């Protein structure tokens, strides 16, 4: 007999197998999910969820697809949160402190409560990456925020009304585009291809009979 636990979806009790995740427990209970369900493997942030265990004060945030149910869990999903993304043309921006001041000035209202970090479903140091953004240390902000899945739990809890995932995203795009050094081998290869350097070679290999291709493939040297 499998172990069952009581969970409460939006306050209503359901008895579900104890080894399910919150997401599969909702489906076990009969829900057909449209909102609040995306990749189901912890990468997309669609299933931001807030819960409290009966009898305990602490309010927790999690991804429903990555969290096992517990006895007495009171669950509410947050399928959408009005995160405030600013629009910009990345070509017009430059990687400096000014860009954050202009696009996301509310980050300077951070009161240092650390609720964002506590709420992060990826265990990121969210307050730290906001601090990097404040100081214009975009590369550090990008690194520290890199594993963000954009679930928005940080923003839900922020008293300064910061849209943290959007700040991290801007820092990453600026870092990828402007700060990280250019890959010269890439630039050169693109130029070679555009100059037609591989045109004849690719046409030749496309014309080869299958038997010859099999021979080439089965005996190709493999880089160590």
């Amino acid at each position: 007999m499998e172990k069952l636990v009581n969970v409460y979806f939006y306050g209503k009790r359901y008895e579900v197998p104890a080894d399910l995740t919150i997401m599969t427990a909702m489906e076990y209970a009969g829900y057909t999910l449209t909102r609040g369900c995306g990749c189901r493997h912890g990468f997309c942030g669609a299933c931001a969820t807030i819960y409290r265990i009966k009898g305990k004060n602490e309010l927790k945030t999690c991804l429903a697809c990555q969290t096992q149910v517990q006895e007495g869990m009171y669950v509410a999903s947050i399928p959408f949160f009005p995160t405030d993304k600013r629009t910009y043309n990345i070509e017009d921006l430059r990687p400096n402190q000014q860009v954050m001041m202009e696009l996301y000035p509310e980050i300077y209202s951070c009161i240092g409560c650390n609720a964002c970090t506590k709420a992060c479903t990826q265990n990121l140091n969210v307050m730290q990456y906001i601090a990097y953004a404040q100081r214009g240390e975009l590369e550090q902000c990008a690194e520290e925020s890199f594993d963000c899945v954009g679930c928005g739990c940080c923003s839900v809890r922020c008293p300064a009304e910061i849209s943290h995932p959007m700040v991290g995203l801007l820092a990453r795009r600026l870092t990828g585009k402007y700060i990280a050094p250019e890959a010269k081998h890439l630039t050169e290869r693109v130029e070679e291809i555009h100059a037609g350097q591989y045109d004849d070679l690719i046409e030749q290999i496309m014309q080869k009979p299958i038997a010859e291709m099999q021979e080439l493939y089965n005996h190709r040297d493999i880089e160590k």
Partner: protein
Amino acid sequence: MFTPEMLESIRKVEATRPARMGMEPRRMTAEEKDALLRAYHPDYRTDGFAEIQIGPNKGQKAPTELRNLLHSNSRLLGQDIDLQKIDYDVDVLVIGGGGAGAAAAIEAHEAGSNVMMVTKLRIGDANTMMAEGGIQAADKPGDSPVQHYLDAFGGGHFAARPELLKRLVMEAPDAIQWLNRLGVMFDKDTEGNMITTHGGGTSRKRMHACKDYSGAEIMRTLRDEVLNRKIPVVEFTSAVELIKDDRGQVAGAVLLNMETGDYLVARAKTVILATGGAGRLHYQGFPTSNHYGATADGLILGYRAGVPLLYQDTIQYHPTGVAYPAQIYGALVTEKVRSLGAMLVNVDGEAFMHPLETRDVAAASIIRECTGRHKGVTTPLGSGVWLDTPMMEEIGGPGTIEARIPAMLRMYLNYDIDMRKEPILVYPTLHYQNGGLEINGDGFTKTIDNLLVAGEAVGGIHGRNRLMGNSLLDIIVFGRNAGKAAAAKAKAVDLGTMNLDHIEAYARELDEAGITEPGVSPLLLPRYARHER
């Protein structure tokens, strides 16, 4: 949280690890691979397939679940949809909110088109977001697009369409550069050189990555760019049927608001199907690494409108899906784990294959180890083999796992498994649809000249098996090309009178073929809700 039997097996894995550290298992010969695939790859299980009885691929086989959706009627059959009431009127309609769709929308917008995206979930809820390992491009000295072509062509069993594969490899460096210029943070060294590794079946280290969030980093950047450009994205709205006109062209799509159940009409001069894969159809009962919406909708829409499928009978099972614990059963364990040195090891601690065989060979080899040789490790949901992750820390130094595959580390730590110290259990998971709708080199279908397809919904780019890192590449290369081509084509298209006659013709065909109880398709979402009555 391992069982006693698992713990006992782990001790054997640990005992053989020092001896395995210095050795490289032999790669299989071409003959050995052929024999293995025939005996153990799910594509060769005849009971998993059924014959298509109508349409352009009549007489060919498809996975039974897909065949049943093809043998289904439109949900609009018998409905009175007023096509004169047009809710959206655009040049280019992109159906699908993943990487291919977003890349197409950006390029169509760049070309000056009035472009719109529709997606049944959110933009970014797609397999792109979940791609972990990386993206291939031959951009290093010692490598070339020709070498990339050879690897992909051979890995795909010499079945790829040359004109498609040529584009994939020749435009790959350009795709990486485009992404980099949009701000994708590729793993680079201090000089700016891309950090590249092998994938299964590559002969050169050309796998570019963004830690093990490669697809997520690409997808969130593309999504941000779509939003910055203010391209309309209609979310939670699925396309349930293509609209055609009296000239045989496609003229838009009937949409379904997934939340209200209302139908909407989108008119478009060109349509791009970028609806992705089919993992949620759970062929042969396999778990899947795919996102919630991967139900082959675009294949159904295209086929009903008369577009042929290609290689619809070849499916990629990723060799390393999670076998344990149950909560993450079927989730992807990136191939990068093997690129960075982890071996596949059986219950007795023996390395039973080279870790970097192609995916089909690796999956078949794991299935053989578990079912044919009975050397798998028993799990609550079946069996699996070890992926010896602590080897990565020994080879790359302490900290390698956290730096290079943080998502994997986090996923397992949620269940108190520390892959830095203990190996993990894996078994093949349904990962990728090798086949799909047939296109020409510019992305247009061969039967409807203003309908395009991009991304996983396309068949023929990879042949009958796909190499790691070539899918993130194809969604960018073919997504961009489709966007450009659709924008250009839209200028020349003159639409006639819109109609849905093809769904009635399809119903008649089903009837004439003796398919008396057809279902309804596309599926849109898998049926996971349990109902007691």
